[in-house]
């Protein structure tokens, strides 16, 4: 038993919307633990329940079942205005009739802080988000990126215990979005506040999150650091949603510790890693393997000494994308393999139709649980 105090602790959260054509389950028995001072990302496609989960923490949605603890205290009975969490809304929701300063001061005024203290905090917040010269402007006079900063400052002003961010970057253009990622990360580190960010953008999640929870169909599929999520996906959804991957149908021949000896369709053999929920797989089981394109080594066939772990194939397509070249390689399997080779290396170029031998480490090849 760990006695660690989590910033947010969701226990068996279920949220069901009663609909005309039947109930819609938005969250299905979701449990989540978000650490203090952590940049936590809820990642998933639209409709996966990530925003609903965020709104449950903020208090905009009542839970159908389950509990939410904030630093160990139950907050389910509290209305939004009594929860020490603030939200940065997707469309900012700045008060259009108030200046930037008044927007930022809003929460402090509601908390009846001393006016002098409010002025100081507003000034500090404006400096924090580099908006000092816009204090007297109205939201309509600001650009999208500037409104974004004001929304951040407004939500941070009362120093909430947790800051919730609902797709905060989705309304910005690409350049700005990338710059804001770094700034958000920096802001989280500077303020020491726990950030919970909702996004459907895997790049955003990987570049900002200390830990990521991948959600689908109202349930959390996997929680872990960006590296864990990318390198050791537990199931097909996570492997597919984060980055690019190759799926290979295989049958387990034998299991040795956490490595499985697998036979691919067509008879080629490869090693694969068994871990997490996939550890229960036994010899004879039909499984799905996942290999990232950049983890695949491609060699001309004649150089291959003919050892056990080389799979014969031929190049069917080659796409040059600057830093890398993507090769589509036909194997004896149903789906062709995609390999991604870096161009900076002194790698040989392969021509379409060339006979090659592909290989990958057992560590880079994951057996998926489902």
């Amino acid at each position, binding site marked *: 038993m760990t006695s660690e105090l989590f910033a947010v602790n969701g226990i068996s959260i279920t949220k069901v919307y009663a609909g005309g054509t039947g109930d819609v389950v938005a969250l299905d028995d979701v449990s989540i633990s978000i650490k203090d001072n952590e940049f936590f990302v809820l990642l998933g496609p639209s409709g996966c329940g990530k925003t609903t989960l965020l709104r449950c923490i903020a208090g905009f949605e009542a839970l159908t079942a389950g509990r939410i603890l904030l630093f160990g205290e139950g907050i389910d009975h509290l209305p*939004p*205005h009594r929860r020490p969490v*603030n939200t940065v809304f997707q469309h900012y929701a700045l008060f*259009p009739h108030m200046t930037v300063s008044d927007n930022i001061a*809003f*929460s402090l005024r509601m908390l009846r802080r001393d006016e002098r203290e409010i002025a100081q905090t507003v000034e500090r917040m404006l400096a924090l988000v580099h908006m000092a010269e816009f204090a007297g402007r*109205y939201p*309509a006079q600001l650009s999208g990126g500037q409104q974004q900063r004001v929304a951040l400052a407004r939500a941070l002003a*009362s120093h909430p215990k947790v800051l919730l961010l609902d797709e905060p970057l989705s309304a910005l253009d690409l350049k700005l979005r990338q710059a804001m990622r770094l700034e958000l990360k920096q802001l989280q580190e500077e303020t020491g506040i726990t950030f919970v960010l909702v996004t459907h953008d895997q790049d955003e999640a990987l570049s900002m999150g200390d830990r990521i929870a991948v959600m689908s169909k109202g349930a959390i599929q996997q929680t872990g650091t960006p590296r864990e999520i990318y390198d050791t996906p537990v199931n097909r959804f996570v492997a597919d949603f984060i980055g690019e991957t190759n799926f290979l149908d295989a049958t387990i021949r034998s299991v040795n510790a956490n490595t499985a000896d697998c036979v691919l369709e067509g008879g080629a053999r490869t090693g694969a890693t068994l871990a997490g929920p996939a550890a229960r797989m036994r010899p004879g089981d039909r499984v799905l393997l996942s290999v990232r394109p950049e983890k695949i080594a491609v060699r001309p066939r004649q150089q291959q000494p003919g050892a056990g772990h080389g799979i014969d194939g031929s190049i069917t397509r080659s796409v040059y994308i600057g830093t890398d070249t993507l090769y589509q390689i036909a194997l004896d399997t149903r789906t062709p393999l995609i390999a991604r080779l870096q161009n900076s290396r002194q790698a040989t170029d392969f021509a379409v139709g060339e006979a090659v031998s592909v290989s990958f480490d057992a560590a880079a090849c994951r057996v998926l649980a489902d």
Partner: protein
Amino acid sequence: MPSPATPPPRAASEHARARRRLKARALLLSPALLVICGLLVLPLCIIVVYSFLTPGTYGGVVWRFSTESYVQFLFERDLFDDTLAFSPAYLQIYWRSFIQALVATTACFLIGFPTAYYIATLPERKKYMWVLLITVPYWINLLIRTIAMLFLIRNEGPLNHALLFAGLVDAPLKIAYTNIGVGIGLIYTYLPFMVLPLYAAIERFDFRLVEAASDLYARRWTILRRVILPLAMPGVVAGSLLVFIPSLGAFIAPDLLGGGKNLMIGNLIALQFQGSRNWPFGSAAAVILMTIVLCALLVYVRQQSKARLRQLR
């Protein structure tokens, strides 16, 4: 080489085209302008002119310049020695009308705001039915409606019958022929003028701001006061003026429901053209009312432009 002073011919032709288009658009206004000039501006001019003439013995005017009407508004002229003594009688009528209109406007706002809020937050399909229902009273003539109201609230009317029957009162409530009766009449007549602009303003309101405010520790009443009301202000101002201005000069409600006992501006003016046959004084009373209304409108326009400046979207 083309001289930089002369604009390129393309720009010039575009400029001319824009002006032609503007002229063509102005033509669209001409029917309305004609009606307004013929039926509003001209009669108004006549009224202003009449207010400076001398009353004829049997109504009408005698074409002799006089400021007597305006003097009469504030002073009483002694019949024998022609001295002027200040008389607040007419000012009192204006003051009473002002209070009556203010009460009616406030009441309309208090009734109209929750109504408008309710309608504005309905699903799209239901909204339009409700807006249509708000206009139902206007399908019936105002006079008929006011008389119906009189029957309802008079001493022997169903309202008092019900109250007596329920034992809530010992004697019929005196509502008809009192200021309260007039107030009820004004509220009933002008309530939709309050509801519709309020509805339009609240309908445009972004309800995500309510969520944002509650997220930032604001309670419900604070959200109403600090976020919803300020943003609905253009609607509040428009609705208030649409109720206040016609209430100030209302004629039918005070005449029928007030029994003409407590004169209001509308009755006073009507009386000058009918019973008293003092057209210049009636005209002067109307001009004074109009001046007050124009001042109110000026405040409105300034308020509106200020609000728009704040939220230039």
